[in-house]
C-alpha cells in the first residue's frame, strides 16, 4: 500500500505512515481550525492498513502542541490502532513529551486510559 509522508506546517504535524515497515509517526504541532479534514486520510490509511498489518506496528507520537479539535481525531487514530492490536498484532505506542511538560504527559495518560494499549512515555531532554 501507498505510504503517507506529509511535511509539517505551522498548524499541522509531520506525518509518516509506512505500511512496509509498520512505522507510524506524528510529530510537531497539530492546531488546525478544522482537524477532521486533516486527519481523515490518516484514519482511512489505518483502516486500510489494519486489513493486512505488519506483525509489529510501532507508533511514535511527538507533539509539541495540539488543540482540542485535534484531540478527538488523535483518539480516532488510537482507536484504529487498538483494533489492530485486538486482532492479535503487536502495537507499540511511544508517547514523547518535552522535559517538565506535565500537561503533555497527562494528555498521553488520558489517551492510554481510554484505549487499551499501554503507552511508553518518553521524556525528551534538550
Amino acid at each position, binding site marked *: 500500500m501507498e505510504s503517507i509522508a506529509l511535511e509539517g506546517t*505551522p*498548524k499541522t504535524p509531520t506525518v509518516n505512515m509506512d505500511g512496509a515497515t509498520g512505522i507510524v509517526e506524528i510529530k510537531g504541532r497539530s*492546531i488546525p*481550525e*478544522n482537524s*477532521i*479534514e486533516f486527519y481523515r486520510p490518516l484514519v482511512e490509511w489505518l483502516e486500510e492498513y489494519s486489513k493486512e498489518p505488519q506483525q509489529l506496528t510501532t507508533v511514535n507520537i511527538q507533539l*509539541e*502542541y495540539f*488543540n*482540542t*479539535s485535534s*484531540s*478527538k481525531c488523535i*483518539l480516532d487514530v488510537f482507536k484504529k490502532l487498538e483494533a489492530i492490536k485486538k486482532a492479535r498484532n503487536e502495537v507499540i505506542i511511544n508517547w514523547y513529551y*518535552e522535559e*517538565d*511538560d*506535565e*500537561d503533555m504527559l*497527562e494528555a498521553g495518560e*488520558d489517551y492510554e*486510559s*481510554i484505549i487499551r494499549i499501554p503507552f511508553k512515555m518518553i521524556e525528551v531532554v534538550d
Partner: protein
Amino acid sequence: MSFNIDERYSKMNQGEVLLAYKGSITAELITNVLGVVESKLDHVIDKSITKKKIYNILVESLQNLYHHVDDLPYMVNESMDIHFGIFVISKMDESYVIRTGNFIRNDKIKKLTERLDKIKSLTRDELKELYKFVLNNQKFSDKGGGGLGLIDIARRTGGGVDYEFDNYDNDYSFFSFTITIDN
C-alpha cells in the same frame, strides 16, 4: 445605550498589554496572531513550559472565539466588522491574562452560563474525568469539540477562568471571557 464596546475594550486593556485586537475574527488573523505572539513570548519568557502553556491556551481561546462569534444583524449595527470579536493578551503582576469578547445571542446565555459555572466548580481530577468523558463520548462537529476547549482551558489554568455578560439589546449580549495563567 448602556453597553459601549469601546469602553469594554479599554476595560480589557489592563496591565502590561502584549497584544490587543478589536475587529473581524478570521482564520488568517488567528494564524498571524499566533505567529506574532509566539515570537513575542520567546523574548519575554525564559521558561519553555510557561510559554507552551500560554500558547496552548491562546490557540484554544482564539479558536473558540473564531467558532462561536455571533454576528449582530446588519440592521442593528452597520458599522461593526463582520465576525466581530476582541482579544487582549497582557501581563498583570506575575500572571498572564488572556481576555476575549464576542457577541452572543441571548438564547444561548443560559446554556453557556451553566457550562461555565459547572467547569469552574470542578476540581482538577473532576475536570480530567469530564475531559476524558467528552473526548470519548461526545460527537464532534466541524465547528468544535463539544465544549472540550473550555474544559481544556480550565484544566491547564487550574480553574482560572471568569466571565461576564453585558446586555446589548433584546437579542444580543456581549460575552467577556477572562483566563488567568499563573506564571
